[in-house]
């Protein structure tokens, strides 16, 4: 923990004013000016002393933000603790120091957070003696990836704003920034994965579905409606009808990144354009995964050409974050792998959508797969998730749990954009 005292413009102005007052007081031997000079000097001394004391008794700890997403605010909370038992602490600013890349915990190729998002700071107005409060900084991620935080800087200019003292605390941490999620047009998923023979299945076990599965003896607790009266009358024993368990639709998203960035034909040699196309493809894939998960699909993800193992088709919150993390961690600068066609399991009875940045390479074994390119994102997406309608004053997207519309979250003071809250349609 290193305390610093840095040059500060208001402090320099204050110093100049003090010197002028001192000169005037000495020149005129005016005792009232001497007293004002005393007040100015006292304020400077108190500023230095109190700012040092405040920083000494203030502890800050960054709380793990878990993850963020491009286009959505990333709220990072800091636990600010006042260890003093008698002194209150006012006006604490907490900010992140830019990372010196490659030095954070010796993690290779560490990406500093400053490359992925704009700086922001948290402000704590007051912490009482022995208290802890949570300050919030709202970052705005601009690119996906793994953001590495290293050092936290706290500074204060209390009480008079004459001096600014700061202290740097080391707290290495990583967090993932998911790709930008879009609200997709209605019917897209239905067109990709119709709820028919491919999209829906009937599980081969009993459940609460509608189709006939089998008969069994009556057990106490069974509903009277499920008794097969015909069979019961025939064998003179209560018999219960068992129904099948419906299986949700399954979808696998395949992201084809086998073509390296510089070889994308559609970019015409423009590296930034090519990279943008790849990022759009990743965002499109993430948006489809998100939309499918909201619709109740079981989703799997395969990323071809990058060092990312295929993810099985599942459905739960942890699984969703696993897919998002995989998309966030795709390193487009690494050498691409030549993907084998069999990396997409043919025997998997799932709907398949393949997304490529530029040109599609159809799979010979899957004739009914859906193929999308990055350029189609502009037509398939309605708006970024969570963004309000443009040019509409203070409208908010309301949540509708029953219809499972994509809910824009209203960012409260202490809220984080969470997948869970958007699924439940609750604004924090």
């Amino acid at each position, binding site marked *: 923990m290193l305390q610093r005292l840095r040059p500060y413009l208001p402090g320099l102005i204050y110093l100049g004013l003090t010197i002028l007052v001192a000169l005037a007081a000495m020149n005129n031997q005016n005792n009232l000016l001497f007293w004002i000079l005393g007040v100015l000097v006292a304020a400077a001394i108190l500023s230095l002393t109190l700012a040092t004391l405040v920083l000494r008794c203030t502890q800050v700890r960054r709380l793990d933000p878990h993850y963020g997403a491009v286009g959505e605010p990333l709220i990072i909370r800091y636990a*600010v603790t006042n260890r003093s038992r008698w002194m209150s602490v006012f006006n604490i600013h907490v900010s992140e120091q830019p990372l010196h890349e490659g030095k954070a915990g010796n993690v290779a190729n560490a990406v500093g957070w400053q490359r992925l998002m704009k700086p922001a700071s948290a402000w704590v107005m007051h912490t009482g003696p022995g208290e802890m409060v949570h300050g919030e900084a709202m970052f705005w991620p601009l690119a996906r990836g793994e953001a590495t935080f290293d050092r936290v800087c706290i500074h204060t200019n209390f009480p008079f704003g004459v001096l600014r003292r700061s202290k740097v605390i080391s707290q290495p941490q990583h967090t993932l920034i998911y790709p930008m999620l879009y609200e997709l047009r209605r019917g897209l998923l239905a067109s990709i994965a119709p709820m028919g023979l491919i999209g829906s299945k009937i599980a081969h076990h009993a459940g609460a579905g509608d189709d006939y599965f089998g008969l069994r003896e009556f057990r106490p607790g069974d509903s009277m409606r499920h008794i097969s009266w015909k069979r019961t009358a025939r064998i003179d024993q209560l018999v219960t009808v068992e129904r099948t368990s419906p299986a949700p639709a399954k979808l696998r998203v395949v992201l084809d990144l086998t073509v390296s960035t510089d070889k994308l034909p559609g970019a015409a040699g423009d590296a930034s354009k090519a990279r943008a196309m790849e990022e759009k493809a990743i965002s499109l894939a993430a948006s489809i995964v998100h939309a499918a998960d909201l619709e109740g699909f079981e989703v799997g993800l395969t990323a071809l050409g990058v060092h990312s193992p295929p993810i099985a088709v599942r459905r739960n919150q942890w699984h969703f974050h696993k897919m998002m993390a995989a998309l966030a961690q795709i390193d487009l600068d690494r050498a691409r792998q030549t993907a084998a066609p069999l990396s997409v399991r043919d025997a998997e009875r799932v709907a398949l959508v393949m997304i490529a940045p530029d040109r599609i390479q159809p799979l010979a074994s899957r004739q009914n797969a859906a193929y999308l390119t990055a350029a189609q994102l502009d037509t398939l997406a309605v708006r970024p998730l969570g963004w309000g309608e443009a040019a509409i004053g203070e409208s908010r997207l309301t949540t509708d749990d029953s219809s499972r519309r994509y809910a824009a979250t209203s960012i409260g003071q202490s809220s984080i954009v969470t997948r869970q809250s958007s699924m439940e349609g609750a604004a924090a």
Partner: protein
Amino acid sequence: MRLLRSFPALAFALVLLSIAGLCAAQRSVGLLLVAGTLAAISWSVTEGPRGRTLPRWVSNILVIGVCLNVFRDLMQNSADVMGVLGRFTLLLTLVKLYERRHARDYAQLLMLSLVLMITGCMQSSDLIFGVVLLLYVVLGLYVLLLYQMHAAYEQARDSRNASIPADYRLAPPLKPIIGRHLGLHFRLASVAIGLMGVLLSVGVFVGFPRGFGADLLGTLNAPGAGREAGFSWEVNLATGGRINASAARVFTVQFTEDDRPIRMSEPVYLRGAVLDRYEGGGRWTSPEARTRRYRMTSGRSERVTPSGIESGRTIAQHVTFTRAVGGEMPLFSIYAPTGMAMDTTVDVLYDPRRQALRTTKDTRRVVGYTVRAQPEPSLGTQRAITDQIIPAGGPDWFVDREGRVEGLARQLLAEAGLPDRTPSFDRDDRFSNAWDWNRRATEVFENYLQNSDFKYTLDLSDVRFGSDDPIVNFLFEDRRGNCEYFASALAALCQSVAIPSRVVVGFLAQQYDESTQQYVVMEGNAHAWVEIAVAPHMWKAYDGTPAADLPSLTEDDGTLAQAVRSMYSRFEGNWSTQVVGFDTGAQERLIDSFSQGWSRRLSSLLTSIRGGMESVNNFFNVGPGGYIWMGIVALALVIAIIALARLMRRSMAIRRTLHLQHLRGSEYRRMLAQLGFYLDMLRVLERGGLAKPEWRPPMLHAAAITVAAPEPARLVRDITVVFYEARYGLEPIEGRRLDQARGDVRRLADLLRTPI
């Protein structure tokens, strides 16, 4: 946020206070009415839901206009630079009050208010302004604390709003993060900071060396600014300005005759300095003259006149200063001084030409003295106390170039029926001698000044002398002034018709305290009058100031108004003496009293300690060796106290670091005894640059530092294992394990090259 919402109103009040302070300093009621009204209505105009502020371009134009007005004001009042600066700042403040206010604008407003008060300080030192200044400082400190919160809140809100893209409209408003009891804590902090600030500021005020850097940049004060009534070694009528009649007590004087206190029948003129040279331009001085030096010691008296001289009625004046004085100062006394006694060893100089006593420049501390005087000295005494016959004229006299003063004098004499020149006394039997004519003529002049339309005033701030001599201006133009003007005019009239006269400055003792049988003399009793020669070796006092206007305190009539006036006068006196008049001498006196007080206390403490040790030694009857034993015991006691303090401090650190607050009794004592090694490990790690964050478990920290420092990480792991056993284990840990852990801590310290 009530605290933040109160900031705009308090800042506005502070600015209003500074405007009032400047107007009070400039003593301009009109300015206060206009500026105060404009400032006050700016709140209703700019604040609130229907508030309107000046557009930026309008305020820029107004500022340019204000700047141009400065040049005009400066040309009209070139001598009053501070006044011009004050008005300029005032106008800027008024423009700023009507602008939209963000954090930066508030900072500018606060700065402008400070400049207003600073310029006010350079123009006035009244008690009223002092009270406004004190209120401003107290309120200003609080407002400045609030400003930091307000500015930080605005900055946080603006940066949050700036980071949100334009199309994202769901960002909530920023709410400040606060703990519990914000209002109470902030008020407590403000009071504590305010008290510390006031103490420090008083320390700087008292300790800052006076006299250093004086007039380094020239004269910046307004003419006559900050002048206080009081004794001065010269009279300068050209300064003008306003004099504040101070009620600060200077000294008390008791008159005794034959060792019995007496009360004089008339106001007593206590002579200080005799100014017998007119320099021109309204300035009277007292040039160097031959003096007799007397080396005085405490209680010993000296005579100015030789012994054996026929003596008349002798009155002793016992003077006691309210505060000890030093340096060159007159021994105030009635005419004619014949002897003195001092309360301390000092050198006293007697000026026989002026019949005045004074101390030398290197005098340190004088609290009181006694001067014997003869109000009606005998001829022998007259000759003994002077060194020459009073001359009839000289180059030091007032020169009336245009002859207007002489013309007036002759006119007055003619109207009074007196001859206009010293008569031939052989022929004219109306006068016993020329000295008698001097007296009669002076009475005519005195009567003229006292009973004509001359007005006594202390405020000459608007007097413009032009090319006239201030005395001529007083007699023929303004016809108003203070006692110095009346005395100068009387002396000029006398000298214009060859009457030997001189201006005397000192104090006029009027207020008699029956209880102590003393006269109380205040700064406001400083006075100037004239002495004219009424005999070859004798002077007599005449006072041109109208009697009704003599600076005095009326008798206490017991009314509430009088009590309030007296109290105000007392405060004003103390303010003038202790704050406005605080100088190098006051610093030295303060240091002397402080050092003497502390040395007295220290010596009494040492004496009592010595006495205690002697009594203990006598009790045990050990002899001289007993003192050695006592020293050893005292040293052991000191060491024990230090060790105990360190032990308690370590116990508190262990309790706090390891969160043992909930433990009691034997369990707590066992933990304290066993877990010290863990605290040592944390300290070693901190000093070695591997500090463990409080939130991180020690095992995790060992893993975190493994890459950077593998060997220390291993030791940290081993020590942590023992710590867990000792802290959370069901059985008490073995001593061997504790010793092993302590050894590991030492090895860790060696590895990291830090002390434990």
